[in-house]
């Protein structure tokens, strides 16, 4: 596996969406290649930054109340 193969599959690798063999081959290449590692580092930092924008954003109470009202109209007897 050469550098071109590795960078072409970098996002698949970071997403853990490759076969075990391919994951291992890329992991080994990155550990040894000074050219490819910075690309990996950049893409990983980017994906981490995107993932970090996920906020625990509670639905407003008004939405919660409306959902419950609608469910009760439909016969829901819980809560």
């Amino acid at each position, binding site marked *: 596996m050469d550098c071109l193969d590795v960078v072409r*599959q970098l996002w698949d690798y970071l997403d853990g969406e490759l076969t075990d063999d391919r994951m291992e081959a890329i992991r080994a290449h990155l550990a040894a290649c000074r050219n490819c590692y910075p*690309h990996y580092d950049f*893409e990983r930092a980017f994906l981490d930054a*995107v993932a970090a924008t996920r906020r625990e954003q509670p639905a407003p109470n008004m939405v919660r109340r409306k959902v419950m009202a609608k469910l009760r109209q439909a016969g829901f007897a819980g809560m």
Partner: protein
Amino acid sequence: MTTADRSKRDSDLRFEREALPWLDDVYRFALSMTRDEADADDVVQETFLRAYRSWHTYAEGSDCRKWLFTICRNVFLRSRERERRKVDHGGDDAHLETMASVMMSVSLRQWGHEDLLSRLDLGPAIDRAVGELPEVFRDAVVLVDIEGMSYDAAASILGVPIGTIRSRLFRGRRLLQEMLINHARDAGLIPHAGAPCTGLA
């Protein structure tokens, strides 16, 4: 209490225990699609109403969040009175998108700004950029990169093949990166005109 009453009570309890705890997640997903709180409100109400009415079709023990997101997505599409898109943006493009992204990292290194991502306060910029992505790409980025779903789960929710999710996701990521680079340029953190990038290293 009749058998039918007991069965309904048990079903409601299961709905309360398994579906309702995902209300915040469904709201966040609805908001990511509608980009409007009032519209998200409507979509969430309709999602839970449909989920309740079709609760008997939910396979106990399966991924309830994914099931609710699928309903939510369908409610959103119907609310927009739009046919579900079946456009395949081409799985083969995915590798090219990855390569284009790597070129950005090469350019940043050439400019001596390889640590740009760690220096920028990216949260607000990413939020804004995600909101500006074309919808097909935004949906893939939100489900995989923000909600942490697999390609398979995102494909199931959006009703498209995995290859389509992958190419939309990669295109969306690259567009996001371009927007962030522009943000950094506007902030004067990197030059407006960089040396053309011709190689990987």
